[in-house]
């Protein structure tokens, strides 16, 4: 007890953030957000305004007209709902299965362990475009075409997730802790559930977040397997806005904005959890 209090009080001086630090962060924030802001500007102007010789930096008044038009072309709310369902399911599943496998690779000894993890990493290097035709046939024969299952099932596990969780468990869960618990008589399942999971919870959350993002932004595969507008995901819905041979910038970026904004909102809520979660892990450690 005493040790921790002392630790907390004597925070090293350099951990304060200097003015330079804030300037750097501000520049980064500006650069991160500017394209998104620009999307909003374009979506609220006419196409002609965007192509005018003097660059336009202020939003115009057309935003809601454009968004209305977006909704006329595609049932966007349904698309957002579909994308959320797929994203959440995939995120939860990936974290669940990856944590299990990651723990096994990191903390359990079994035959073929080293070879298997190398193999897993190796498969991450195969270009995904290669498997499109056979995967499509598989999904088609399973009767999943035009359903969200075609998006969810092939994405339930990921090599990256396993690799990530293995790193996380390896770095954050000390062997001694597990030894001690095992000596105390706890079984593997119990140890996994009560000791390992709480420690890696935050990193697991981060993985889930990234899985959700990857699923949200996926276009090529959903575009192939989804058919009816009611089943589209957000990116496919945005693609429907390409109304002519050539690009109507304001309409397309309006749609892209609508496909991105919900995520931003999500982060406003989730961001707080993310921060406190990561912080908790640090203090506890």
């Amino acid at each position, binding site marked *: 007890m005493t040790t921790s209090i002392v630790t907390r009080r004597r925070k090293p001086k350099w951990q304060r953030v200097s003015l330079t630090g804030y300037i750097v962060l501000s520049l980064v924030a500006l650069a991160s957000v500017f394209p998104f802001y620009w999307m909003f500007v374009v979506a609220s102007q006419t*196409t*002609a305004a*965007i*192509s*005018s*010789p003097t660059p336009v930096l202020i939003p115009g008044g057309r935003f809601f007209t454009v968004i209305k038009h977006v909704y006329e072309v595609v049932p966007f709310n349904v698309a957002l709902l579909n994308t959320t369902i797929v994203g959440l399911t995939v995120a939860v599943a990936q974290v669940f299965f990856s944590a299990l496998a990651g723990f096994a690779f990191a903390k359990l000894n079994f035959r073929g362990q080293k070879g298997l993890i190398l193999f897993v990493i190796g498969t991450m290097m195969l270009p995904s475009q290669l498997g*499109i*035709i056979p995967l*499509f*046939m598989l999904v*088609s*024969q399973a009767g999943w*075409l*035009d359903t969200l299952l075609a998006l969810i099932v092939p994405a339930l596990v990921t090599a990256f997730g396993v690799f990530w969780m293995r790193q996380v468990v390896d770095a954050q869960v000390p062997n001694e802790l597990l030894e001690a618990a095992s000596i105390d008589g706890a079984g593997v399942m119990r140890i996994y559930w009560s000791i390992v999971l709480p420690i890696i919870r935050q990193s697991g959350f981060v993985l889930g977040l990234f899985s959700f993002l990857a699923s949200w932004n996926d276009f*090529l595969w959903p*575009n*192939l397997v*989804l*058919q*009816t*507008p009611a089943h589209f995901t957000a990116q*496919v819905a945005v*693609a*429907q806005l*390409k*109304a*002519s*041979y*050539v*690009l*109507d910038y304001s309409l397309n970026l309006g749609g892209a904005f609508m496909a991105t904004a919900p995520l931003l909102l999500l982060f406003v809520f989730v961001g707080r959890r993310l921060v406190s979660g990561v912080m908790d892990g640090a203090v506890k450690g």
Partner: protein
Amino acid sequence: MSKNKFTRSLAGVAMIATVGAGLLVAAPAKATAPAVTINIWTFGDVIEPAMLRAYKVIHPEVTIALKKADLDPSMTNLTTSCSAYVQSHHLGSPPDIAAVEVSYSGYWRAYPQCFTDMRTLSTSAANANAQSLVPSSSNIASGLSANDIKNNYLAWRWAQGTGYNDSVIGIPTDVGGLEVAYRTDLFKKAGLPTDRAKVSALWPTWDKFIAVGKQYMTKVSAADKKKGVGFIDNVGTIYAASMNQGTYKYYNNNGTDAGQLVYKVQGNAPVYDPKTKAQKIDPKTKKPMFKKDWVLNPNITKAWDYTIKADNAGIGTRIGQYTSDWNVGMTKGTFATILAPAWMMDYIKGQAPTTSGKWNIASLPGGGGNQGGTQLTIPKWAAHPQEAWDFINWYLAPQQQLTVFKTYGLFPSTKVIYNDPALTGFKDPFFTNAPVGSIYLTGIQKLQPIFEGKLERAIDQAIGAGLGRVAAKKQTSLQSQIQVMIDLDKATK
């Protein structure tokens, strides 16, 4: 009293009930056809919303589900689906209709097994009374197959939907056409005539067009030249235009699916000197040296030479079409001419509205021209080929294509309505009231059918890259041609 009243009210109710029932029975029973969903894979604005609304009035039981994507992903999807079909022979998957763009028609014509041969289909009576429901619509007779509607369409557009084995795999939608859109204000500043007929008379051939360009450029200030101002937006468009004016491009139809490659022929090839990067000059006779070798065929060489000549004359800007620089360039007057298909007019209006009234349309040098166009096909594995065929016959019928023109400006490919005053009399104030209708009509009727083969797109891409290298000064013309030959040999192996 009450009994009397009661009886009378009962009788009254009974009468009303009877009359009501009678009316119900007598009313023409609406044919309750079973609900059907037609899946269409498309891109761009091939399928127009207003037409879908009209079809919904005619057939409330039919729901049309559109899936749009960019051109390349759309075609990849079709390939994937056809491959799945060819291996599993599973029928009833989407789509029922697939739009195939002209640049891919060469490829799909080599694989008619992916599509239903439309000569074997026959329209039902579904749209026989369409006009009574939508007055602007036409009626589609029953019993029509592809053979019956063939003569409604331009021959060369029809040919783009014919498989190598003569099966009909697609019906043409609109036709792009190609003419020259020019800026009257910039022409005037350069001392050129602005009247449409006079301008068209200036350039009956590509050589003359280049000469006019040169003349224009003499009036361009040095400062503007440094900024990249030019006469035509991109000289690469000359290549495509010229190629379409011949009778063959890269293939001949020899009855096989692959087609016969004719991109190269035996001829007098210039000998290449790596030191000068141009044709070798014989030190003794001081004459350019030739040898017997493979050369690109005469049509390609001619189109190539025009393009390079234009580039050497400095009349092109280095802006690529459909880039953001191009959009801005339209307003700024960075270029004075664009080789424009009919559907590009709307695009110009959208991107550069402040230039209204400053454009006009003149005829294309060298004859007719075309850019773009689509065929509607019915894949072999479609779930509802009959409904799809009924829809296609209605949607692409002459009357409906005319309606699409009036509403969206897409030019019809159905030659039988070309004398309709809506087309011949169509003027556009943005383009100085040019009779755009009749100008494009003249142009598109000059083209001949050209056989397209499987690797059309790949070959176009390689040649386009070759022209680009010369324009970017990365290679000389002869050097680039040699590389193009190597690339084509590799691509077609």
